[in-house]
């Protein structure tokens, strides 16, 4: 009696399992395998050696680059959270009608109909040495010489990150906020809470799961990125993604794979830590 039921259940789960196996498990497994291979200047050969990892952990560049990656992730996270929370709060609590809420929310998503790269590159003429920003500041008399740090700097990298990924913060936070019963806010008001106290003691705690989901999106996206760093820093800054892409362009696949494995583990540890703080299961 049990056997056929079990079999049918497995059969029903099989398509998803096949997809995950082919497109998630197998590639990761392959990367892990290759990360133990060896490489010469012109070839790679199957092996089981720890050379790649030894080199990776032995090089001070690795630590610097990982540090830079974390720095980008944390700063971007702070800005996207501040902006994303504010936007979501405005949409959820200050916009009265649902039609208006939907309209404004769609407005937020319009830039995302264009490609990432285009949105990124469009900052370059704006921020450049003779770009719109510098020219405007000079003509207003705020500065005498063009600001050098506007483009090809950490500033421009983080600006682009914030621009690209804020919506990933807005969406989950807005979603959680919409589920907050308005009577909680009234109850807080009835109990003498000021607007700020209500925000801090009621809305923020109840929005935590949304904040956490947004955080996971932003942190994984920033830590895995390489193209934004390359374009917006004019190849002057590095993060782990660029380390991997450089290795690949030099055909050093085993070394790239080892770096990728370490990055993957790092990101998983970060997410694991985040999930210890907040239970997001009820949001999914």
């Amino acid at each position: 009696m049990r056997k056929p039921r079990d079999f049918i259940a497995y059969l029903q789960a099989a398509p998803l399992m096949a997809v995950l196996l082919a497109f998630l498990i197998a590639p990761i497994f392959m990367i892990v395998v290759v990360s133990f291979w060896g490489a010469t200047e012109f070839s790679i050969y199957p092996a089981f050696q720890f050379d790649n990892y030894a080199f990776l952990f032995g090089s001070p560049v690795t630590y610097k680059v990982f540090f830079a990656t974390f720095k980008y992730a944390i700063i971007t996270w702070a800005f996207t959270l501040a902006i994303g929370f504010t936007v979501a709060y405005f949409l959820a609590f200050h916009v009265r009608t649902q039609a208006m809420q939907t309209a404004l929310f769609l407005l937020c998503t319009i830039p995302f109909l264009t490609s990432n790269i285009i949105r990124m590159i469009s900052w370059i003429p704006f921020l450049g040495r003779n770009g719109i920003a510098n020219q405007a500041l000079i003509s207003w008399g705020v500065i005498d010489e063009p600001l050098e740090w506007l483009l090809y700097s950490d500033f421009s990298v983080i600006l682009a990150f914030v621009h690209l990924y804020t919506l990933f913060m807005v969406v989950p936070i807005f979603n959680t906020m919409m589920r907050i019963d308005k009577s909680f806010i009234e109850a807080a008001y009835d109990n003498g809470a000021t607007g700020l106290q209500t925000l801090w003691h009621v809305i923020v705690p109840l929005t935590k799961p949304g904040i956490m989901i947004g955080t996971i999106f932003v942190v994984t996206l920033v830590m895995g990125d390489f193209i934004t760093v390359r374009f917006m820093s004019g190849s002057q800054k590095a993060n782990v993604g660029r380390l991997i892409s450089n290795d690949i362009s030099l055909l050093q696949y085993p070394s790239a794979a080892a770096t990728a494995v370490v990055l993957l583990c790092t990101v998983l540890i970060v997410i694991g830590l985040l999930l210890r703080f907040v239970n997001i299961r009820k949001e999914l």
Partner: protein
Amino acid sequence: MSNGYDLELINVTKKYGDALAVDRINAKFKAGSYVCLLGPSGCGKSSTLRMIAGHETVTDGSVVLDGFDVSHLPPAKRGTAMMFQNYALFPHLNVRDNVAFSLRMKGEDKPSRYARANELLEMVDLTALAERLPAQLSGGQQQRVALARALVTKPKVLLLDEPLSALDPFLRIRMRAELKKLQRELGITFIHVTHGQDEALALGDELVVMNNAVIEQSGPAREVWSAPKTEFVARFMGGHNVIAFEGGKVALRADDIRFETTGLAATITSVEYQGAHVVLNARTAAGEDVLALMPDHKFFDTPKNPGDAVMLAWDEGRLHRLQA
């Protein structure tokens, strides 16, 4: 038990755009009384309560508490506290923190606010559950937490918005006894919004019956029930017949009706035995349906069946002429 805080509504009006929710109502509630605001949904009773609480602005008129016009004060400054229909307990805070919430907002330190919260939890008999989250409590327990949270501010008036509607019928009767007992012990004014007339009669010292944004009748519970002023009140409170009599409408209590040899001619349409009572429906010659409620022994002395012709009679002075 009175501690002298009268609540008075003067020409209180609420408009949502052009829609009139509450139309110039006047009422005065004695300190320490249990008041039930009663009416069908959409009659303006909830808006009235929310205006007293300060969660709705007063379009016109004033709410006067203890001699002060509080119409434009924020809720926490009025001396009122509200218990919400769904209790609105903060889901991320445990029972004790929920009760202590308003003290925390005032900036009281932890030991003193917990001491006060514990006092209230003891009063509502929830000390053992102080560490639980609201989601881990039953409906009745949640209600008691909401009650403790509202009372922690020592309000002069406690406002209850359909507090029993989320409970099952059995619990509802138990909780209403607890509410009444608590109100007696505290001696503060309770204003309780409900759409159930049985709840209002069981609890209220005073009833305020509302319909279509105005007060239809207000007064002591017994007076409202036994002497309804309008057809709406007579029908809404139940147990009354509204019949045309001598050129006007009158209310007649169902349990005042007897069968005699002379009187209003009618035909029995249904008989329902309910244990202590028998409920009879009859149709008069004029085509009006009349409800009669008889003690079972009286009915079974001269049992009637559907289709029997009867004469309906009542004692002199039991008819109440209704306002048109």
